[in-house]
């Protein structure tokens, strides 16, 4: 029998029982739709995490001054004052280091005319903005020369703009912190919340030296941001940095580090892995419903074979070979699962679009999830259709013909 004739036969048999065919396919439709929607949610979450990580700089390391131990008393992170600008300069020499940005932090009450706002004033060098990949919305950065001169200038984040200036233009105005007056030379673009939820735009940046000398009266620094050439380098340079700084701080082997290294790349990797696991988990839960859909197909096909035993007997008496009967039933199962797959894909995309529109979820329908879901649907059709089809094709003609 030709393939086309077999296909027509299968379609016609299904068409005779439209309602039953639809209900049978429904299991696959729901399964495929669930896989596509769930994977879309997972992929959306992955994308969101990736973009948040990007905003933090995923190849970066942060070095902060650490704790000290004196006669058994150990203090917390940031309490030692041993990290120096010279340490930062020394790190530049390490292979795999692209940029180095030393910084100091302070919290102040910033004032502009009648308003005031509690925020942090961080002292940095122009390189900091390159390391963070953080462009300006307007104005310009302070220069290396202004850092050398401890000039009274600053660059501010969007939250500070909103809280201190409202609708008046900030550029060129002067902000007061304690007794220090700084002119606003630049406004940064909004960066949004960090992966930890803190507002990255609620900050004022002034030259490192300005904050050190004129605001805090210190000579040490609080931290250094190091940008590595790539993700792998970020991991490999950690021990080198450790060794170099220990040497520079003349720490004996029995002494603890007086600094801490935080590897953002490590964090990024953890977050990405967990997002991926989340994605797979959602996908596999949805796959179970696809499997259940397949069992539904098998169930109905088995009933159908029994109901149509006499028809099978007649066809065999008229010359149907085993494979003719096998293909007739297998094609029915494949059409059910294939059509169910197509409808399921449309339903899944619709579901994902609805979620994107009416919920907080970020969704992203991926091509591979569509291909995987449709492929699985067909596989399910073959797997669960084969048993009933084999059963039909192995009936003995005379017994099938006599079946009541």
């Amino acid at each position, binding site marked *: 029998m030709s393939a086309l004739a077999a296909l027509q036969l299968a379609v016609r048999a299904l068409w*005779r029982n439209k309602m039953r065919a639809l209900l049978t396919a429904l299991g696959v439709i729901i399964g495929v739709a669930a896989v596509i929607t769930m994977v879309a949610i997972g992929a959306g979450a992955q994308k969101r995490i990736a973009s948040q990580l990007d905003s933090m700089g995923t190849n970066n390391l942060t070095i902060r001054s650490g704790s000290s131990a004196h006669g058994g008393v150990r203090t917390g992170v940031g309490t030692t004052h041993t990290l120096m600008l010279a340490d930062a300069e020394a790190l530049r020499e390490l292979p795999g280091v692209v940029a180095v940005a030393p910084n100091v932090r302070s919290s102040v009450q910033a004032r502009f005319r009648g308003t005031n706002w509690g925020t942090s004033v961080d002292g940095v060098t122009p390189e900091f903005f390159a390391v963070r990949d953080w462009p300006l919305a307007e104005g310009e950065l302070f220069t290396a020369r202004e850092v050398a001169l401890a000039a009274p200038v600053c660059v501010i984040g969007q939250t500070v703009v909103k809280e201190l200036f409202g609708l008046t233009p900030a550029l060129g105005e002067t902000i007061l912190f304690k007794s220090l007056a700084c002119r606003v030379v630049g406004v940064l673009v909004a960066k949004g919340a960090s992966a930890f939820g803190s507002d990255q735009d609620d900050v004022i940046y002034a030259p490192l030296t300005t904050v050190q000398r004129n605001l805090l009266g210190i000579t040490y620094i609080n931290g250094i941001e190091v940008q590595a050439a790539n993700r792998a380098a970020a991991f490999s340079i950690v021990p080198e940095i450790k060794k170099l700084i220990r040497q520079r701080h003349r720490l004996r082997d029995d002494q603890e580090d007086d600094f801490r290294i935080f590897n953002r790349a490590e964090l990024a990797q953890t977050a990405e892995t967990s997002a991926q696991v989340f994605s797979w988990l959602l996908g596999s839960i949805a796959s179970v419903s696809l499997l259940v859909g397949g069992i539904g197909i098998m169930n109905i096909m088995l009933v159908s074979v029994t109901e149509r035993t006499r028809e099978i007997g007649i066809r065999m*008496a*008229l*010359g149907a*070979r085993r494979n003719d009967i096998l293909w007739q039933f297998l094609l029915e199962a494949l059409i059910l699962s294939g059509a169910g797959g197509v409808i399921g894909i449309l339903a899944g995309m619709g579901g994902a679009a609805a979620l994107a529109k009416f919920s907080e979820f970020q969704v992203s329908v991926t091509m591979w999830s569509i291909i995987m879901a449709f492929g699985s649907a067909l596989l399910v059709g073959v797997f669960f259709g084969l048993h009933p089809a084999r059963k039909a094709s192995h009936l003995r003609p005379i017994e099938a013909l006599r079946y009541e």
Partner: protein
Amino acid sequence: MAEPIIRMESVHKYYALDGVRVHALRGIDLNVMPGEFVAIMGPSGSGKSTLMNIIGCLDVPDSGGYWLSGADVTRMNVDELAGLRNRALGFVFQGFNLLARTSAVENVEVPLLYAGVGRVQRRTRARELLQRVGLGERLNHTPNQLSGGQQQRVALARALVNRPALLLADEPTGNLDSATSVEILDLLTELNQKDGVTVLMITHEPDIATRAQRKLVLRDGTLES
């Protein structure tokens, strides 16, 4: 001498039902020549249908030999037997055995479908045969829209569509009134005489058996002569 279309040598058939063994055929020897019209008679349960099913390659003997046009049927596998049923044999059953909810013309097309005949040719040939059995006006009727006699004509058209050499009819008029029976018998006789189709027919009624050239009587699984 020409080769017989059916040659059987000491064919035995057993059925096992709930542990009880029924010896349905007890050594059948049979020769039927091409072009013959043979009637098989005998009391109920004597093994007529069993014999017919074996001749029709729907079932296989438990022992003995069976050659169809010289080919050894007992050595064939299921697909070869299916091919034989498709090309060499035509069946007419007492209960018609048409596919339900399928039009007359599509029913007649089924053997052509399994013979790999193309769509257009299938339709043409099926129409031709339905016209021949007098159902040219009922091509698209489904079995439940046809009378018993009409259904048996559809079955007859289906049996003949692949131009078989041998037509097997198991009580073809068993479910029909006498007037309709005569019509069907006329068709069978015409086929035998005009087209040279060999016909084997099981019947209970002696006056129907008179249509045949030869009469075989089966009793308790053996042929009387």
